[in-house]
């Protein structure tokens, strides 16, 4: 029978069929970050279990660490005990920890593809909803809560109910200045934040095939913002070229065997999807959110929309915006380029390309937080940090930073921030902070003009 990419990975990982759509699935890789990971390791120990397969578990501190230049574990005092706990448990259990300052350290969903910990056809979980990012290499990757994470650590398996299949096609060519971030924000704006609930999403179509691998990770990153735990792109030559030679990628004859297996993964031509949507990629303009949910998004050329219900009115009020006025031109105070959505080398290159010889507008605080130690080193090797610094950006250490405000780094109350992250929730970047989600290029444009601006108009 014809099967989807998702079906093939799911079926090949069923250890036991539990009936009524439930399976006990094998989990090939487990990622841990400082917040959820340290807690889960403690829980496993306290409940008297050993780690089932420490060789399949990888950890990195990212959430509750400072990203200030020269930071140590103690710079953000609130996270120090958590990080020390993670280090100690990593030593006791033998799992691999990529600590601050080491290659491999970084935001968990940036470092996993970078090191090829995640590979096509694998199952992977992490105690973090943006684990769906890893689906960009063609893996079945999803976020779990603390209890499920504990279950995986103790058994290397997880009881899951099979989700349904949804395919989202993007056909046509993206316009200049339009990125994967705009593609996914446009879809969330059109279909809503619950459209993917209960589904595994496959992104397909000519515009997706044309995306470089890092952009596919961005696309999959916001699957959870559309309600889907899992988002994926079928592996192809773009994926294989990206993975080849990375630290945990197969080598030699095993690489050849893996390639053969991966080439069989894409959805069969006549595979059944329970729901299909299609978008014209060429019609997508750069996007910017105006509210407190990623579905509250418009093209940067549009006005702030009229509220449809009380939730919209509350969002306009929180964001300090007036319906009917153009969103472009809204003054901004902060710009954040970072997060597991948009902090990879290609993102930093795109943002730097917008800068030219211009400078950050007076009164704007602008940060670049590379997604990993490796991204930071690569960017510095090609001089990107110097270009950002010359323009007036702060160049920082890798971590989640202003995406989550769990690390002492916050946007002040009432301040407006254009952010390349994935959540514009009330208080996400700090109590009272006003977040507008956008692509790295749009964030750079906002930094230069001191206002929300259409990157295509900058020249």
């Amino acid at each position, binding site marked *: 029978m014809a099967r989807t990419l998702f079906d093939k990975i799911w079926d090949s990982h069923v250890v036991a069929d539990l009936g009524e759509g439930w399976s006990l699935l094998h989990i090939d890789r487990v990622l841990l970050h400082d917040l959820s990971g340290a807690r889960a390791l403690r829980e496993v120990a306290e409940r008297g279990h050993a780690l089932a397969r420490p060789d399949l578990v990888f950890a990195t501190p990212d959430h509750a660490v400072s990203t200030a230049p020269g930071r140590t574990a103690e710079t953000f005092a609130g996270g120090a005990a958590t990080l020390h706990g993670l280090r100690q448990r990593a030593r006791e259990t033998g799992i691999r920890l990529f600590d601050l300052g080491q290659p491999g350290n970084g935001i968990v969903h940036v470092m996993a593809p970078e090191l090829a910990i995640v590979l096509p056809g694998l199952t992977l979980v992490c105690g973090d909803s943006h684990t769906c990012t890893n689906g960009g290499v063609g893996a079945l990757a999803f976020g779990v809560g603390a209890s499920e994470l504990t279950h995986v650590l103790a058994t290397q398996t997880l009881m899951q109910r099979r989700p349904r299949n949804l395919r989202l096609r993007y056909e046509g060519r993206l316009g200049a200045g339009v990125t994967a971030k705009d593609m996914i924000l446009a879809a969330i704006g059109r279909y809503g934040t619950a459209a993917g609930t209960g589904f595994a999403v496959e992104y397909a179509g000519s515009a997706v095939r044309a995306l470089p691998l890092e952009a596919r990770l961005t696309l999959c990153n916001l699957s959870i913002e559309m309600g889907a735990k899992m988002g994926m792109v079928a592996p192809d030559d773009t994926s294989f070229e990206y993975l080849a030679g990375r630290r945990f990628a197969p080598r030699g004859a095993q690489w050849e*065997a893996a390639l053969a297996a991966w080439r069989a993964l894409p959805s069969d031509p006549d595979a059944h999807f329970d729901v299909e949507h299609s978008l014209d990629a060429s019609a997508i303009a750069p996007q910017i959110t105006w509210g407190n949910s990623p579905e509250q998004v418009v093209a940067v050329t549009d006005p702030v929309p009229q509220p449809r219900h009380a939730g919209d009115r509350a969002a306009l009020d929180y964001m300090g915006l007036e319906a009917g006025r153009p969103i472009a031109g809204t003054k901004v105070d902060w710009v954040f380029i970072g997060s597991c959505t948009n902090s990879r080398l290609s993102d930093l290159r795109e943002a730097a390309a917008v800068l030219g010889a211009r400078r950050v507008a007076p009164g704007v605080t602008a940060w670049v937080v590379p997604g990993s130690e490796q991204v930071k080193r690569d960017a510095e090797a090609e001089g990107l940090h110097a270009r950002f610094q010359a323009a007036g950006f702060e160049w920082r250490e890798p971590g989640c930073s202003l995406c989550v405000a*769990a690390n002492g780094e916050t946007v002040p109350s009432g301040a407006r921030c254009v952010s390349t992250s994935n959540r514009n929730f009330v208080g996400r970047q700090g109590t009272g902070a006003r977040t507008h989600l956008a692509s790295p290029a749009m964030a750079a444009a906002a930094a230069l003009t001191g206002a929300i601006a259409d990157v295509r108009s900058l020249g």
Partner: protein
Amino acid sequence: MQPFRTVTGIAAPLLRANIDTDMIIPVQRLVGASRDGLGPYGFERFRYLADGSDNPEFPLNRKAFRTAPILLAGENFGCGSSREGAVWTLMGMGLRCVIAPSFGDIFHNNCFQNGLLPVRLPEALIRRIAEAVEASPGNARVTVDLERQEVITPWGEAVPFAVDARKKQAMLEGLDEIALTKQRAEEIAAWQARDRAARPWAWDSVS
């Protein structure tokens, strides 16, 4: 896990859509925190005013709803971050059941891991229950019976709800899933041995 069979009591309305887990518990409260004692921080950005006093506009601050064991919510409740702390927080506030038109997937799973029952009902019906509750604050009671899969409205109507059979059983009995899975240790080991032979690249690349 705390087993759940049935609960009867006040239902507090909080009908806004897309209540995310950041709203339920800000991440700062979870850095280094234990799972107990989170209740006072539940919805803190909405529940308290800048000076730390109670925000009188927040529904759960109203006297009639302070001890409610049931929450009536809007669509996509619990979307966003996978933090299980959101469930621990709601339970810390004394809640045992959330009734909403739809839930975030990961939050929905997390509820069943802890004994907080998420019940899906049509939005229009939830609005009617909220109206009945508002008409008689503190008196109108709702019953949620997991065994029978019924919600008894304040006007006495029994409304059926759907729940996954496996999750229902686990919740009624307060099952320890890790212990259950560990009984399959041999099956898991056999699967791994077979897979390692079939996909050596998936194993050797990290060993």
